[in-house]
């Protein structure tokens, strides 16, 4: 058993800071040309958002950028980080991924590679 435990050493990263984080809510859509990932990230500015692609792992990390004004009288949300990681399917053209942030909502366009797009084969009358 002790060998078993040692084997897993390093597989579970531990947090250094006690900073809370949540999973943002995400929609995933697909059409013939692309996959579209939409995530709610309220309070995240362009500066506080980082999207990383490591092989097929796409991770979204955002921080709420809120300045403290006065004293808090009532608190229903904290200054948290948003974190979520996805495994991209094969056939995504990773060099053409585009992201836009609007009204606190992230739209991530993941275009498909040409060879996986469905295509129509024309039939010629002989």
């Amino acid at each position, binding site marked *: 058993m002790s060998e078993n435990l040692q084997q897993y050493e390093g597989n579970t990263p531990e947090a250094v800071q006690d900073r809370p984080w949540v999973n943002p809510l995400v929609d995933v859509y*697909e059409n013939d040309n692309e996959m579209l990932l*939409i995530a709610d*990230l309220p309070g*995240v500015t362009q500066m506080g958002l980082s999207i990383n692609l490591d092989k097929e792992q796409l991770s979204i990390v955002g921080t709420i950028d809120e300045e403290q004004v006065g004293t*808090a009288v009532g608190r229903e949300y904290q200054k948290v980080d948003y974190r979520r990681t996805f495994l991209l399917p094969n056939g995504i053209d990773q060099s053409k991924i585009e992201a836009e942030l609007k009204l606190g909502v992230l739209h991530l366009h993941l275009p498909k590679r040409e060879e996986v797009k469905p295509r129509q084969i024309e039939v010629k009358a002989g």
Partner: protein
Amino acid sequence: MLTRWSDVDRTYLMIDDFQRRVSQMFEGFETRRRPGLGLTPRGTWPPVNMYDTVDALEFHALVPAVSDKDLKISVNQDVLTISGERQVTAPEGYSVHRQERGSVKFSRSFTLPCKCNMERVSATVKHGVLTLRMAKAPEAQPRQITVTTQE
């Protein structure tokens, strides 16, 4: 005998390690699972923070995908109401793989803790956060009273 003791130590170390790993698994589990960012009871939307700067009250609400047109803010006596609608629709021509974001119609009311000057209210939406700033009425603001000595 000495080796025996170190065996015992190792067993305890292993148990400690195991405990640490199990508690690490559940760390933040509750907050991570709840989409509303933690402190609001389920079904309360949007989450709102209230701040008191000395001369004004400030409300911050997390309202992603809600534009200024979808928001309605009203004040009746000393009750502030923030209401509106968030509409999330699947983009046209796309098939759905996963849909976690929902549409919601909301209305939340707050009793203002002090009188506010309704002429000086500003509300803005930026990056999915509504910021509502209401200046306090002059009589509700803290006042300094100077003390003079009399001979």
